[in-house]
């Protein structure tokens, strides 16, 4: 009989999936799932989900020690995985925190909400730790399926249903592209293991890879670009972001993006690292297209959720510059600087986005949500603290020093200049200037436009807590950047050590 595989590296995932199933059982067997009782059950499950996420976070950070592989090398837990898992867990926990009031008010407080977020988180952690094409695909599917359901969670709302359906159809297409790419790579190399693939391509660096293999890599790239919503695979993003319930949109813009980007980095640097000459131009193109589209398409938006969708496309463009730098080859230190830039960027992006969405979730007038930028007019008079927090996030997204967003962009552009990718750096700076226009327009609307109709007060304790926390992190990052910088450096070394 075969030995039992070492379960230690995967313990956080196993714990989280068991917790999700236990909570599902607990919720289902609570008395009464409708009306007031149902809301109470949903709250209980949400709070317990939050606890489960925090416990998983503790597990992830305590288990971490050097790269550990298990399940026949299909699963890897290294410093890189730990870094991204921490980000994803924080993202899920914050998403549940800011969603509580919204789901109650909108009448969609159901116990499955928390459970689905937990299962999506499990999928993301599986993606981050994937060390095999099959493991990667299954992680992606667990995540995506849970997200399709979350997108149409407000099932009596036409736009939410439409968002879920659109996301499902296009997501299935992307999964198909990805699978086709995986099958080509497997067919031309004979293995699905990332380690074996890396060894295979590393052994004959001089030989040109076969055409089929390159096509396979391109298909995998396209599938992943869809998942991070990079141009030209971004079409679903604005519609889904606008239609999905706002806390779900907040979750979409952070968790899945961070996980998909982690997978993107791992697969491009790990197994296909020696074929960088094949994919680097594609990444450069995707990065430029995403930055430019994110900057220009957002200008005309009036709906703040759509605006955030385009903004997230732009941010992914900046992050992909780091990957392009890592694919440039040459000096090892420069490649590491590129990846490190991506990690720092994503960590800061997480807090900026959660904060902004917390503000959007507070935009409520006479018991229904408003989503237009004009509804923020005069916010500085009615809600001075919230206006200040939103202004901090907007300045940070625009990349104005000394806020954290500036440092995120700074490290990325610095790496691009060091790798002599001047074109990318220049286009990046120019498009962030264009993007600054619409970020600053929100600040202008809040501070200089006349107050029309005040938004509802008070904003609630959870929201206030999240807003204060995230804005302090963004504001004071420059004073104490060492923990994030050293964690990102360690994670980068972990990725390159394989």
């Amino acid at each position, binding site marked *: 009989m075969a030995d039992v595989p070492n379960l230690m590296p995967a313990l956080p995932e196993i714990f989280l999936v068991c917790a999700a199933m236990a909570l599902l059982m607990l919720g289902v067997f609570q008395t009464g799932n409708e009306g007031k009782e149902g809301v109470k059950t949903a709250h209980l499950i949400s709070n317990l989900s939050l606890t489960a996420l925090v416990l998983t976070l503790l597990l992830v950070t305590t288990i971490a020690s050097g790269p550990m592989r298990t399940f026949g090398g299909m699963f890897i837990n290294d410093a890189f995985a730990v870094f991204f898992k921490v980000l994803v867990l924080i993202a899920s926990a914050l998403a549940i925190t800011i969603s509580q009031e919204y789901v109650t008010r909108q009448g969609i407080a159901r116990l*499955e909400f928390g459970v689905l977020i937990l299962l999506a988180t499990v999928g993301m952690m599986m993606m981050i730790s994937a060390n095999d094409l099959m493991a990667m695909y299954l992680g992606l599917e667990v995540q995506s399926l849970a997200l399709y*359901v979350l997108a*149409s969670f407000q099932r009596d709302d036409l736009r939410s249903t439409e968002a879920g359906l659109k996301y499902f159809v296009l997501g299935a297409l992307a999964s198909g592209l990805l699978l086709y790419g995986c099958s080509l790579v497997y067919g031309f190399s004979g293995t699905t293991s990332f380690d074996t693939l890396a060894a295979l391509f590393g052994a004959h660096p001089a030989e040109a890879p076969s055409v089929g293999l390159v096509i396979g890599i391109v298909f995998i790239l396209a599938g992943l670009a869809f998942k991070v919503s990079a141009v030209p695979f971004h079409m679903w993003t604005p519609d889904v972001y606008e239609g999905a319930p706002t806390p779900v949109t907040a979750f979409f813009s952070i968790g899945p993006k961070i996980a998909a980007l982690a997978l993107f980095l791992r697969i491009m640097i790990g197994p296909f690292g020696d074929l960088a000459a094949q994919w680097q131009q594609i990444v450069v193109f995707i990065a430029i297209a995403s930055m430019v589209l994110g900057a220009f398409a957002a200008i005309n938006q009036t709906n703040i959720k759509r605006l955030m969708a385009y903004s997230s496309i732009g941010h992914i463009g900046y992050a992909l510059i780091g990957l392009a730098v890592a694919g440039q080859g040459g000096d090892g230190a420069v490649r590491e600087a590129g990846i490190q830039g991506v990690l720092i960027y994503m960590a800061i992006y997480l807090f900026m986005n959660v904060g902004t969405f917390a503000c959007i979730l507070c935009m409520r007038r006479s018991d229904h949500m408003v989503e237009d930028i004009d509804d923020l007019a005069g916010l500085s008079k009615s809600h001075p603290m919230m206006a200040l927090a939103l202004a901090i996030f907007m300045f940070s997204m625009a990349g104005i020093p000394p806020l954290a967003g500036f440092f995120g962009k700074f490290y990325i552009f610095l790496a691009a200049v060091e790798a002599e990718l001047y074109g990318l750096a220049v286009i990046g700076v120019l498009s962030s200037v264009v993007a600054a226009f619409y970020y600053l327009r929100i600040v202008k609307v809040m501070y200089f436009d006349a107050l029309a109709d005040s938004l509802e007060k008070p904003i609630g304790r959870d929201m206030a807590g999240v807003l204060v926390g995230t804005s302090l992190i963004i504001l004071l990052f420059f004073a104490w950047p060492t923990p994030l910088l050293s964690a990102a450096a360690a994670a980068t070394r972990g990725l390159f050590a394989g």
Partner: protein
Amino acid sequence: MHEFVHGGAAMIVQALAFYLFAFVTVTSGVMVISARNPVHSVLFLIAAFFSSAGLFVLLGAEFLAMILIVVYVGAVAVLFMFVVMMLDINYTEMRQGFLRYLPIGGLIGLVLLVELLVVVGGWALSPEAAHSGAAPMPAPGVLSNTHALGELLYTRYVYLFQAAGIVLLVAMIGAIVLTHRQREGVRRQRISDQLQRRAEDSVEVRDVPTGKGI
């Protein structure tokens, strides 16, 4: 000598079984598309699945045979049956263009046939292929293929197996979240209420005066 006769008899039985299953499969296949009543078509489809499962057993692939019956007959064909019975489609109307589309349909069929022949004709198995599999193939006769698959699935691929299970769980939760509604005015059977019912709760003894009603 005796063994030879025995083997020969087995061969004959096997050949007979093959021709029987193959004949039933092909005939039911033809009937699926030519039967007038769509419900009959689905029934013929089930017959075709069953006899192809028999063919798989003859090949020694009993796991595939079981899957074919459990999944295709048990789930897919029954689903077809529901769909056919619930959708109100006028099949005679759909059939009217049959002759008109015959040439192009036949052409597509012919192209597919030629492509298949080219692929099968040019098929060559590389000599190393037998040894380069991810898992060693058990010697025939030692393990049944269900056993061999199970041994791989629950050891080497246990992670993927469990992950696939989670995918199915999420799909199930999703289907319930998106479609399940608590309807008003549904009478449910409450077994505990029924069991707790006593004669005193439901039977009332009244003293009825003679010559009057209640």
